[in-house]
Each structure stands twice: as C-alpha cells, then as structure tokens.
C-alpha cells in the first residue's frame, strides 16, 4: 500500500484536505486527514485508526503501508498529460530511450505523454506501432501513448492508414508540423471524424512557404536574421480552422505562438467548432528579444514572439481558450546548439521543467495551470485513465504531489535527460514536483526518480522538507 498524507487535493472546482491510499494500481480510498496514518510528529500519541480502517475494508487482516509520502503543505493533483513530447534521448542506447524519457517525464509530474510520431522512420503503420508499444511497456515511470502520422511517411501527400491505426487504439494523429495541403487536411479531418480521432497540426509559416529561424520584427531586423511573421502563423491557423469548419472534424492546433492565433481559436470555439489548442511553457516566458544575443537555446519552434503575443498566450491559458500546455520535449545532442543561430535546430528538453514553469508562473492561476497540464489534455487525448482523471476510490492511481513554495534550479538538482538544450539550466523555477505516482507505483519521490526494481526502503521516510 502507498499512502499520501497531509496534502491538499485540488480538482476542477473543488479542493479538500485528505489522505490517499493506493493499492494495486488504484486509489483505494480518500480519507479524512490523519485518519489513514499517524504521520504527524505534532501528535505523538494519536489513535492508530488506519490499521482498523484498512483491516475493516480489506476484511482479511491488516494492510501494511509500505510506502508513505508526507505531502504536508503540498498540492495533490491528477497526474499530468503531455500532448506533445518527443521520445528521444541523445547518447542513449536504443533500448534505454523509452525508460529515460519516461523517467524524465515522471520527474516533471507526467503520468502520461503522447509520443510524437516524427521518428525516423515516422510512425505511420501498424507494424511500428506494435514495436513501440512493446518498448513503451517497459517504461513504467510514465504511460507512453502513441500518436501516428496523418500522412504516409509525413510526406504530406497521402493519408496514412488512419482507420487501421485507430482500430489499434491510436486516437491522435499529427505530422508534428504543418500540413500545407488544405484539401488533404480536410480529408484527414473527415476521415478521422467517425474514428473519434483528433488531427493535430502546427500552424506555421512553413505551410505558406516561409521558413525562418525567428519571429519577424524589430529584433530580427536588428540581428539580420530572417523572420517568420506572426501573420503567417495566423493565416495557417485560419486555414486549418476553416478545414475544421468545413468538415466538422476534431482539430487540435499544436503549439500556437501568436496573439492572432489565440483570437482565432477563441472565435472558433465561440462558433462551436471542435477545435482545441496548445502552447509550450517556454512561450509563456520568453519573447523574441531573448534571442537578441544569438543564443541558440532561444531558438524555438514556433519562434518566440513579442511581449504582446506572450501576454495573449498567458491570457489564453487563464481563460481556457488554450486547452493545454505541452512540453514539446526535444532533447538534442550536446553539439547541436553549438551551430550558427540559423543552423542550430530549434527546441528544448523540457519534460522535467514544463510543469514547474507553468505552476510557478506568476500570471497563471493554479486551476488554469492544472487544467492545461492535466485535466484538459487528458480529455483531449482520451487518456483519463492514464492521467488527469478524478481522484476517487477505484480510479487508476495517477497522481502528482506539487510543492508550490519550493524554488529550485535544474543545475542544482541535475536532470535525468543527458540533453543540455534547456533554457532553464540556471533559471529559478518556482514550483517543484515532489512525487509522481504512475499506475499506482511511485515513479518519483522527493524530486528524485525511484528504482522499482530495487528497494523502496530509502523512500519510506517520505519527503524531507
């Protein structure tokens, strides 16, 4: 049995102080504080009702709490769900990539992530799906949900066997980027509609033939770097929304970055379209001027835009126009960011920091953050049993314990991923994931990964404050 005591459970619309017992991968019970275990040092001689209670429920004798997490002062929420992460790890042996990614995700509070299909080769058929799922099963720290490509080989010309893949359980289709052919996007949305699947596209200037390393504006003009105008992203977003309007399909706009895109999504939702949108945590922090020193860590996809865009994205998360914050985790080999600014690949390794950035963001409310990290993405991905679900008895135990008062840096704590392409290495983060429970098992405790193969004795003492 695993006990999480002393914390405050936060769910959509309500909060309560309660202790949680987890048995066999499920939430066994949610109890009055102090009723489950006598963890409080302030109360040296309490009754020990947990033994009677457990014995009473189990019927056949006492249950021993073999793991206890003291969550005093922390928030307990449903495990986070990431709609966009790349399962990759530089320098890792192939067999270890899944484990390292899953452990990194658990460190960030995720109990589920949607693996992007832009692998090499792209995940566009059943055979690969089985292989990836086999590997994913060995990574217990985080559920890995597989997405598949919209078009065969991500070539953007011909639909992948979406029905076959949907029968095998795939409900998220994306080419992890723009789909330039509007007619093809319409067909994908039509085709996916009866399958109950979502088609995700990243609205990007690339759909209009504009490829540039940063946002077009005063900063790019000063730096002498080609820019992608915000209007190009908006045009692509408008085209994709038109396709959703035309087909009634379920469209997800992956990683929007411009204020105009937020406005388009807001209008589409007001019109009742089945459109959702996501943003990365970094886009809630950084603007184009942060790249003015040619720091390749400030190259993102889409590019960071202006302060006004950033503010619109934050507002969109707070008013739920933007459904999800994604990590867009893209770990890169160490030397990839040592290239010239316009040649260095964009992206950041972010699974371990994404939730901390959002939860510690001074302009984002706790409920909005949890909506964007947990509840809403779980609904969109149909993954409520893997994360973001209700914290009630008999529900799968996917939980995260968050300390909102703990500041830390990645440099001090160290990271699971060997990738160094993070802008947060020495940036102070204002919230910390203290523990993650994935499928009833402790994946992270006290901000450190658990080794399930070994003993958990070292973890019994709970979280040291």
């Amino acid at each position, binding site marked *: 049995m695993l006990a999480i005591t002393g914390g405050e459970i936060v769910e959509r619309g309500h909060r309560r102080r309660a202790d949680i017992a987890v048995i066999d991968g499920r939430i066994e019970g949610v109890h009055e504080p102090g009723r489950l275990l006598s963890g409080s040092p302030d109360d040296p001689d309490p009754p020990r009702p947990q033994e009677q209670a457990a014995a009473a429920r189990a019927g056949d004798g006492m249950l021993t709490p073999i793991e206890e997490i003291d969550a005093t002062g922390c928030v307990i929420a449903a495990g986070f769900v990431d709609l966009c992460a790349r399962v990759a790890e530089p320098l890792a042996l192939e067999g270890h990539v899944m484990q390292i990614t899953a452990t990194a995700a658990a460190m960030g509070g995720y109990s589920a992530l949607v693996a992007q299909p832009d692998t090499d080769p792209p995940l566009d058929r059943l055979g690969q799906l089985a292989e990836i799922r086999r590997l994913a099963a060995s990574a217990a720290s985080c559920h890995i949900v597989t997405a598949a490509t919209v078009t065969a080989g991500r070539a953007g010309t011909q639909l992948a066997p979406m029905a076959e893949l949907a029968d095998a359980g795939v409900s998220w289709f994306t080419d992890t980027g723009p789909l330039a052919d509007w007619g093809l996007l319409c067909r994908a949305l039509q085709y996916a509609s009866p399958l109950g699947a979502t088609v995700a596209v990243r609205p990007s200037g690339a759909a209009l033939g504009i490829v540039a390393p940063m946002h077009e504006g005063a900063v790019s003009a*000063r730096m002498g770097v080609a820019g992608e105008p915000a209007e190009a992203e908006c045009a692509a977003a408008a085209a994709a929304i038109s396709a959703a309007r035309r087909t009634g399909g379920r469209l997800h706009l992956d990683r929007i970055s411009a204020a105009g895109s937020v406005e388009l999504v807001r209008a589409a939702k007001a019109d009742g379209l089945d459109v959702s949108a996501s943003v990365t945590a970094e886009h809630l922090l950084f603007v184009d001027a942060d790249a003015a020193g040619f720091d390749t860590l400030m190259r993102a996809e889409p590019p960071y835009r202006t302060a006004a865009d950033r503010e619109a994205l934050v507002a969109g998360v707070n008013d739920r126009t933007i459904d999800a914050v994604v990590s867009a985790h893209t770990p890169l080999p160490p030397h990839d960011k040592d290239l*010239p600014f*316009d040649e260095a690949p964009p992206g950041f390794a972010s699974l371990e920091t994404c939730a901390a950035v959002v939860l510690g963001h001074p302009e984002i409310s706790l409920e909005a953050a949890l909506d964007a990290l947990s509840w809403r993405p779980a609904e969109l991905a149909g993954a409520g049993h893997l994360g973001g679900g209700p914290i009630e008895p008999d529900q799968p135990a996917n939980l995260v314990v968050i300390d909102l008062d703990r500041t830390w840096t990645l440099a001090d704590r160290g990271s699971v991923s060997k990738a160094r392409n993070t802008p947060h290495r020495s940036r102070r983060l204002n919230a910390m994931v203290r523990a993650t429970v994935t499928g009833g098992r402790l994946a992270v405790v006290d901000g450190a990964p658990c080794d399930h193969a070994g003993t958990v004795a070292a973890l019994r003492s709970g979280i040291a404050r």
Partner: protein
Amino acid sequence: MSGHLLTLGELGTDGISELLSLTDRFVEVGRRPIPKVPALRGRTVATLFFEESTRTRLAFETAAKRLSADVLNFSAASSSLAKGESLRDTFETVQAMGIHAAVVRHRSAGVPAQIARWADDGVAIVNGGDGWHAHPTQGLQDAYTLWRHFRPAPDSEPGAELDDQPTLAGRRIAIVGDIVHSRVARSDIEAYTALDASIVLVAPPTLLPAQPREWIDCWLPPDAAKRVEISHSLDDVLDDLDVVGLLRCQRERMIDGLIGSVPEYVARYGLTAERAQRLAPDAVITHPGPMNRGIEIAGDTIEDLAAEDRLLVTRQVTYGVAVRMAVLFRLIGSGTALGADDRG
C-alpha cells in the same frame, strides 16, 4: 573598448571616436618608407573565414602584419568543417594553438557573438562580417573616410593639439540599396548616427525590414533614431545630401523577386548621370566595392565623379587597413601590467 568588437553599437560614440583618432595614427604609419611597427610583436591573430572574402581577409592580414603580429589563416574550404566538426570544435582547436585575437567571418548572423562566448579570457574576437547582421570594421572604415574627408585641413604646426575633433555632426547621408540584407548598412547606420550625422535610408519596401520605423526605434538610442529617415524615392531626397552611400546590389536578390527587374531598380535607385547632376557640388559618394557599373551607379558617372575627387571608394580601401590596425592595436595591444621600471 574591452574584450571584443562585435558591433559598433557596443562601442558608443566615445569608443568610435577613439578608434577614428587612433586610425589617424596608423594612416601615418602606412605612409612611412617602412610601414610597419612592432606594436603587436609576439601576438598571434587568427583569421577564421567561414565565408570567403578576399578583400576583408587581405585588409585584416595586412593590418596584423604591419603591426608585426603573426597571422594564422583558417578558411572553411581547407578545414574539417566538412567532416562534421562543429563550429565550437573548430574555434577551440584554433584557440588551443595560442592566439590573442580571432577575426571571424561567417555567412550566418551572430557567429562572432557565439564564438566570443566560447573564447578564453584574453582572446579578442573581431567581427569580420556576419550574415546580414554587422560588419563593424567596414562601418568604421566608411565613417573614417567621411570623417577625414569633412574635417578641415589638419593644423600644419606639428605637435599642436587637435581640439574640437571635427565629426560628421549635421551631415546628411543617404544609404541606398538593399538595406535589409546588408551588414554594411547596419554598421554604417550605427557609426554615422553615433557621430551625430543624419541618415536617410533609401530603398524599395522589399529591400527594407518589414517595419523599418519600429526597427530603427527599437535598435538605436532615441536621439540617434530620430536622425534616421526612411524614403522609397531617391529623387525625393537627392537635393540636400552631403553623402550618397551606395550599397552593392546582389544580383541573386534582384532575381529573388524582391524587385521587379534590374532596369526598374536602376530607374528608381541608381545613381544615374541626371541624379549626379542634381547633387550638391561637394557631395561625395561611397561604396563598399566592388561596384556594379550600370546598376548602383552609371558607368560614366563613375568617371565624372572620380575626376572631381568625389568618389571615395579607393580611399575607403586604403583606410581599411589603418582602421583594422587601430582595432587590433586597441584590442590586443594593451593589457600588460603597469610598472614603474618601464618609465623613461
């Protein structure tokens, strides 16, 4: 000035003025029977040209040699870059050979700034031109050429102090051509505005950044920004110019669809004989070279202006060496500990 020379904006007015004064001294050195001083004896200057540019490389190499520095040449063609070595590996290998300064040229903007972050203490990075971003020594060379042209005849009494160094204050300079893709334009703008000149940028909208006013206002200090105008018509601004700074037209850009056609460009932005006629009689022309005859400037206009000594192109090249001597001297010609024993 400390550390590196990446853009002229970092130098400010004082830093730029100081380098122009220093350049005067090296122009004098260049006129000596033996135009060489031992100022940088024992120092090594590496030229890291990831993008070939014979003119700039020669200017830096000559400057370093006239200061008695050793020169270590690296060019991308002869390098292991093709074998997948990263930019950082390449620089660190060169740095490990023991250098005091590296002149970096790259077709990507920002590479000198990146390399400056990887450089050891005591290794100075000089931007030899990066993408569309900056070309500070070219900007200094252009500014020096004009500064020297416009200053009154030097006081002939030797040893007399030069008070009130004349500057470009109040001069009106047009920069004409492909501004958005020009590192020279960006560095010229920084240099000229720092010296209190007024600038008018003349180009079709497609050869300017998308929001040119916002670009200038966000980039330059407010008092400098308000001295920069933007115009799409050379004819509108021709009458009260002191300088016409022509930029080199890259033919590739011309056919990239950024302008309708070359004749159309020449008709609106070329320095034709008629436009040259309309210029003030003492207005001068600069060009970073090599000139495209019949595009930026009409062929016979070149001859006419050269005959009147109003085409400063050759002087720009001559001063290019002295400017780079000043930069290298300023960056790595100092820094030894002070000591009383070195007096006298």
